[in-house]
């Protein structure tokens, strides 16, 4: 106590320092003794640098002061690599970067054409220990292998196959080959998807490729035009043919009916004529004359005795009978 009274500040100081040192030590001890592993992760634990186990999600104890270290690895998360394009912004409507990556997407096909292929791969880390300690530049290696595999597969096909029928084959073979190669390095991942995106001819020849599609459209258009003309004329011609035949049939019916009619009338009259031939003949003659002159107005009658008559009448006037 007297000491304290003599040097109160110093005593306080020593005690405080000790307390502080102990507190710091305790804090350090606790803060370096626990670690949390997220549900998406597994943690690799190294004891004095040596692998000693894998920690599952949850709170874990470890030796303090870095004697045990934990490396959390996202083993549940599916990771994506894009080739030939990049997503600029994820979202409901993802935006893609405008720039292209010809150093990734330009490839030679087996028929020595050039094609631009864009694709993605998705992978998951299956062995966190291998993932951490077997390879140095992991992401770059994954990208390089993916690129070389797709290049090789595209190099084995014709450009039309690449753009058309063989897409799925490339995806499947690609996945298999990438997995084989990466397994060879002991990378500890599994490629779960290879999906080809845009496969297009290079910009310089796209117009020509487009033109083939246009040509196919043109071809179908021309064929349709031919069919259209055919369809326009032939049913009409069939109808026209029908009309001609119908008219002929009408003519035939008319002709026969008329004949029958004429003959019936003739026969009827003839029957009566036989009974009184002279009278009937004269009557018929007068009736005819009446019928012929019934509507006539300007008929000129010329005496047969006049010898100096100019036998042409009414020069320059309209003929009367032409009504």
């Amino acid at each position: 106590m007297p000491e304290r009274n003599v040097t109160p500040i110093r005593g306080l100081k020593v005690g405080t320092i000790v307390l502080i040192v102990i507190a710091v030590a305790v804090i350090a001890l606790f803060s370096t003794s626990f670690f949390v592993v997220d549900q998406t992760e597994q943690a690799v634990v190294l004891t004095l640098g040596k692998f000693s186990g894998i920690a599952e999600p949850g709170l874990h104890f470890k030796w303090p002061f870095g004697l045990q270290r934990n490396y959390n690895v996202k083993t549940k998360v599916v990771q994506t690599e894009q080739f030939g394009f990049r997503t600029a912004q994820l979202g409901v409507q993802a935006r893609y970067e405008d720039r292209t990556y010809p150093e990734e997407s330009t490839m030679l096909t087996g028929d020595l054409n050039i094609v631009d292929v864009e694709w993605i791969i998705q992978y998951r880390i299956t062995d966190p220990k291998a993932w951490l300690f077997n390879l140095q530049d992991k992401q770059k290696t994954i990208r390089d292998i993916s690129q070389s595999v797709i290049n090789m597969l595209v190099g084995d096909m014709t450009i039309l196959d690449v753009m058309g029928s063989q897409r799925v084959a490339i995806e499947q073979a690609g996945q298999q080959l990438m997995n084989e190669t990466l397994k060879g390095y002991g990378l500890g991942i599994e490629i779960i998807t290879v999906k080809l995106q845009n496969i297009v001819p290079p910009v310089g020849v796209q117009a020509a490729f487009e033109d083939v599609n246009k040509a196919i459209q043109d071809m179908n258009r021309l064929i349709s035009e031919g069919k259209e003309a055919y369809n326009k004329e032939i049913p009409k011609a069939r109808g026209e043919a029908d009309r001609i035949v119908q008219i002929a049939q009408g003519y035939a019916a008319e002709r026969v009916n008329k004949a029958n009619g004429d003959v019936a009338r003739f026969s009827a009259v003839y029957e009566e004529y036989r009974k009184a031939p002279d009278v009937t003949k004269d009557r018929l003659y007068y009736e005819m004359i009446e019928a012929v002159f019934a509507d006539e107005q300007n008929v000129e009658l010329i005496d047969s005795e006049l010898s100096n008559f100019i036998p042409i009448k009414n020069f320059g006037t309209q003929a009367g009978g032409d009504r």
Partner: protein
Amino acid sequence: MKKLITVLVVAVVLLGLLVLMGPFYIQQEGYQSVIVRFGQITRVETDAGLKLKTPFVDNVVTYPKKILMWDGEAQRIPTKENQFIWVDATARWRISDPAKFYESISSLDSAFGKLDDVIDSAVRTVISSNFLREAVRNSNDIMNSTSSETFETGDAEGSDSLRQLTQTDASYDSIEKGRRALSTDMLAMAQQLTPEYGIEIIDVIPRQIRYSDELTESVYNRMIKERNQIAQAFRSFGEGKKSEWMGKLENEQRSILSKAYEEAEIIKGSADARATKIYADAYGRDRGFFDFWRSIESYRTTMPKFTKTLSTDMSYFDYLYGPRGR
């Protein structure tokens, strides 16, 4: 009490110092180290864990044990047929013998320099001693390819002939090695030199092969021409089909109409024949009356249209002008 604490603190600090500089070091997973004493390699540690060393005397040089990557610049290389292509190769390697590596190269940077020399030259040698197709293709599968344009004409026979027309004439030279084998060649060539550096090259892989710029231009032109020719085939096929339809149209139109004409004339003819027979049968009964009757009928229809100037000596006027009337 106070002294005890002081002693304790000092002891802890000293222990800490000892541990820090002293006989232990921690080797992490994925690394390996060479222990050098006065410039001389005494030990190589390749597995992880707590390791011993003599303080102040031993120098620990740590190298990665992991597989490392080498990524070269793309090289412009002529193939055997003297076409220039860009080849972008990548390789994987590891330090297989840290002691040798320490002796001959010692730093990673100079290792990359060495690898540049070795791998670039292997790639160059292999590519330039093979045809382009060997580098591009990996198998002869393409020779079985039945790739063709996809289109619909709605007519199977026409489609077949068109398919033949637009088939890219597919005669491919067969390859002897292929890309994989070239990779193996490059690896074998590069591997010959590296063991003395303590380096093991695991693989050499062409990541991308593409035409040089001036070659690209002519390839584009070839591709365009090829496309044009195919487009032309489609268009002209369409023209042909259209003409075919037009011809068919005219053919059928003519035959339909002429057929109708034929039928119509036959119908008319037989009707005429029937009518003729009907008339002949009836009129034949009295030739004289028929003449009279038919003349009268005819006058009735034709006379009203004539302009008439009559003479009084017609028998019709007998009673008007003639002696019987007067």
